[in-house]
């Protein structure tokens, strides 16, 4: 073959993107519908080899028979420090949790710090110390990292990005497509603690409550669940930004089935409930940093719930609903007296309302 004959030199395959919006808005980072559109419409077609698999919290890769789980995440939070934790802990626990709900034990992480010029050293020290402590608590090695400094005003004090790798647990196949009608939905503990704590910590609403973030490694709970009910665990997710509603809507869309929740089954602390009532927020949309959802086959559900509730930190675990044929692709919440509503994922972040 003559080069001159080759009309088209090797062109890199450049699939079209499905993302039609002219610019990036804040909503695209909020973890809801807009984020999903960006990932599915722009990143996925250009970056991901297999377009058919649903997007999960972590990727499980195979290297000649050795399986490794890998995930990445970035942490942008204001204020940096809040009751119950700080950005350093969020970074470690968030990564550990993403690996955990993909069915893997986190082993190591690398970290990038993007720092704003003018950041006081004690602030950085506190976050790095918090990160180190969280990593030790979670049994994760921090293997390395990178640092960049940007101009004042460009980084909200600091942004942290982590990449974590882990060892997939045996006998587990986490896949939304394996979810069936009749499967039960378990939740590890009370919702809304983190999001409401952050909202109150910003100080703009002048509300006070005895609340703190629930940030923690959920791996011990996931491990307890898997040991008791491994073959029956179909799917797991940590409901961070966008809350339980967003995670379950993603599941409903990915498996094409319906999710039915019993409203009174959902554990929630009084103060979170009070803040939500005052501000007109739905607790199901509020971020959590120390909880996870699991879909478990019905014959394993009781053992699963039992194992969770006996594990330290799992005392408040509940069965909150089940998978059904309908409403396909949606999440339905029903009250004890039979009233029901559909709950969707939000477009952006939840906003307080007065009307």
């Amino acid at each position, binding site marked *: 073959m003559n080069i001159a004959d080759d009309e088209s030199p090797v062109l890199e395959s450049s699939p079209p993107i499905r993302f039609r919006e002219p610019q990036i808005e804040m909503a695209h980072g909020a973890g809801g519908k807009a984020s999903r559109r960006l990932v599915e419409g722009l990143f996925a077609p250009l970056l991901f080899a297999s377009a058919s698999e649903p997007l999960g919290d972590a990727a499980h890769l195979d290297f000649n028979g050795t399986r490794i789980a890998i995930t990445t995440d970035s942490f942008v939070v204001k204020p940096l420090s809040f009751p119950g934790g700080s950005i350093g802990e969020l970074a470690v626990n968030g990564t550990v949790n993403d690996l955990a709900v993909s069915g893997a034990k986190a082993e190591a992480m690398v970290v990038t710090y993007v720092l704003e010029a003018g950041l006081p050293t004690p602030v950085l020290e506190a976050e790095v110390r918090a990160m180190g402590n969280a990593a030790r608590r979670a049994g994760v090695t921090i293997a390395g990292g990178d640092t960049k400094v940007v101009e004042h005003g460009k980084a909200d004090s600091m942004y942290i990005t982590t990449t974590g790798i882990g060892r997939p647990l045996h006998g587990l196949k986490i896949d939304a497509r394996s979810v069936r009608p009749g499967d039960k939905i378990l939740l590890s503990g009370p919702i809304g603690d983190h999001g409401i704590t952050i909202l109150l910590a910003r100080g703009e*609403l*002048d*509300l*006070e*409550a*005895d609340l703190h973030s629930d940030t923690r490694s959920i791996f011990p709970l996931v491990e307890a669940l898997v040991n008791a009910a491994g073959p029956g665990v179909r799917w797991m997710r940590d409901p961070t930004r966008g809350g339980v509603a967003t995670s379950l809507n993603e599941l409903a869309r990915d498996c094409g089935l319906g999710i039915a929740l019993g409203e009174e089954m959902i554990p929630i602390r*009084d*103060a979170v*409930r*009070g*803040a939500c*009532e*005052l501000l*007109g927020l739905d607790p199901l949309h509020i971020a959590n940093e120390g909880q996870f959802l699991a879909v478990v086959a019905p014959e394993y559900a009781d053992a699963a719930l039992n194992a969770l509730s006996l594990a330290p930190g799992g005392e408040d675990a509940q069965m909150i609903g089940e998978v059904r044929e309908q409403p396909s692709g949606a999440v339905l919440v029903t009250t004890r007296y039979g009233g029901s509503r559909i709950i969707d994922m939000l477009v952006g972040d939840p906003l307080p*309302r*007065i*009307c």
Partner: protein
Amino acid sequence: MCLAIPGQIVELFPDQPNAALIDVVGVRRKVDLGLLQDDLPVKGDWVLIHVGFAMSKISEKDAIDQMRTLRMLGEAEAAMQEVEGYGLDDAENTKAS
């Protein structure tokens, strides 16, 4: 225009007669009592809060009355059905004839 929540007054401020600290199951906020200045609430009172202002005092008596009325709904009906079940009407007719 409508989101308003019941909260209990847990603290008053001697130097600020128009302010109070309210509690809603553990969530606390300072609210303005200016709209209730004709009949200021006291510590322990329950008030309806909207956009950081107390709009009205909540009457526990009226709330209890309302629940009592609602709980009795259908009881008159049930009582009627029970009486009909006794067949007293038939007995009356038999007696009269």
